[in-house]
């Protein structure tokens, strides 16, 4: 039998029961999962001894996702993520766990919110890492079908996630990433996409990001068509000092679709953050 070093716990924060997993010690590295998925996406980072030697890696499940239940009364309302809710959740979680100037790394919706954090919370954070970051994504399909009684939401969400990955990523990891999507609750993926494709448009403000206060690293998989390398390039064109790398052969879920390849891009970034 092999026991992984990851430990999972529940934190009660402002009336919500938040599940999180952590491993390692040192600089706090808070990891944000993608829309409609959960913290399991970061399992390989949590299990990487080279990372956890110097970093306390923490991945929480947002409310409605993974093992974090929706708030009481969920049956009476639609879930719709907004910039304000998302920012409060991240900063509230960091405060509750007394994380001192954490590094925050987020993918997709998480890659978007790190740009917001760079604008509003730069002084509280040691560095930001955006995976598949873009300032906005126009809707190019109708997400209402992902939350429809006549379409199996898990199957539909899984099929959408499937396509966003690279055909070069290993089959086992790709299909596990799909499985996480298939386990999402009804309307949760679409609720996150409200932030991603409607409310969370920050194209007008990213020029104000000051990377001298908080360094910003951007890593984008070349096979992603939701937040494509071109979308991230558009961010770097306006954010002075942002460091951008295209991840060859990776797609929209680098940390879970091809963990080994992703870690080869992540470790040098974490080394740079540590030494600066």
């Amino acid at each position, binding site marked *: 039998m092999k026991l992984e070093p990851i430990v999972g716990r529940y934190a009660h924060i402002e009336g919500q029961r938040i599940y999180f997993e952590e491993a390692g010690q040192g600089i706090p590295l808070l990891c944000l999962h993608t829309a409609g998925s959960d913290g399991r996406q970061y399992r390989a980072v949590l299990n990487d001894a080279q990372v956890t030697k110097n970093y306390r890696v923490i991945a929480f499940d947002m409310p409605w996702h993974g093992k974090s239940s929706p708030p009481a009364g969920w049956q009476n309302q639609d879930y719709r993520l907004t910039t304000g809710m998302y920012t409060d959740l991240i900063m509230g979680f960091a405060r509750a766990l007394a994380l001192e100037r954490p590094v925050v790394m987020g993918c997709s919706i998480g890659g978007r919110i790190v740009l917001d954090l760079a604008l509003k919370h730069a002084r509280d954070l040691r560095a930001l890492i955006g995976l598949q970051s873009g300032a906005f994504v126009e809707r*190019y*399909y*109708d997400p209402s*079908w*992902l939350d*429809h009684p*006549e*379409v*199996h939401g898990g*199957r*539909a969400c*899984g*099929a*959408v996630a*499937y*396509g*966003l990955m*690279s*055909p*070069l990523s290993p089959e086992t990891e790709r299909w596990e990433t799909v499985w996480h999507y298939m386990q999402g609750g009804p309307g949760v993926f679409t609720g996150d996409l409200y932030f991603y494709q409607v409310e969370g448009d920050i194209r007008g403000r990213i020029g104000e990001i000051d990377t001298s206060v908080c360094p910003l690293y951007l890593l984008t998989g*070349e*096979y*992603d*068509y*939701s937040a*494509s390398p071109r979308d991230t390039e558009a961010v770097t064109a306006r954010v002075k000092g942002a460091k951008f790398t295209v991840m060859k052969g990776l797609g929209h879920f680098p940390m879970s679709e091809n963990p080994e390849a992703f870690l080869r891009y992540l470790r040098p970034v974490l080394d740079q953050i540590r030494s600066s």
Partner: protein
Amino acid sequence: MIEALARLVNDDPAIVRWGRRMNETFMVEAGDTQYLLTVREGKIEKLEKGPFTQRSWAFAIRAKREAWEKFWQKTPAPGWHDLFALLRRGDVAFEGDQRVLMAYLQYVKLVLAAPRNA
């Protein structure tokens, strides 16, 4: 390429299982050429080549021939590797009953990508 679809799908139980509740006809268009695929419990029972004069289908997926050729490369380039990638770039159109398409989306994606393994 499309002509080989029925054999490629029907010989692959891993694809057939994703569509085993599907009993529908859908259209695939490559440039000016139309095809109707009739699916019976995940197998492609009939693959007919147009032109058609008066036929019904649940949904249609239309793209230029060159787009399908890029889509069917053994290792497609970024942006050409998925139906929704083509959708984002405006190189495919989904018409008809979107409910049926979205209900069987994973199967449809696997079916249309099958020529990559030919």
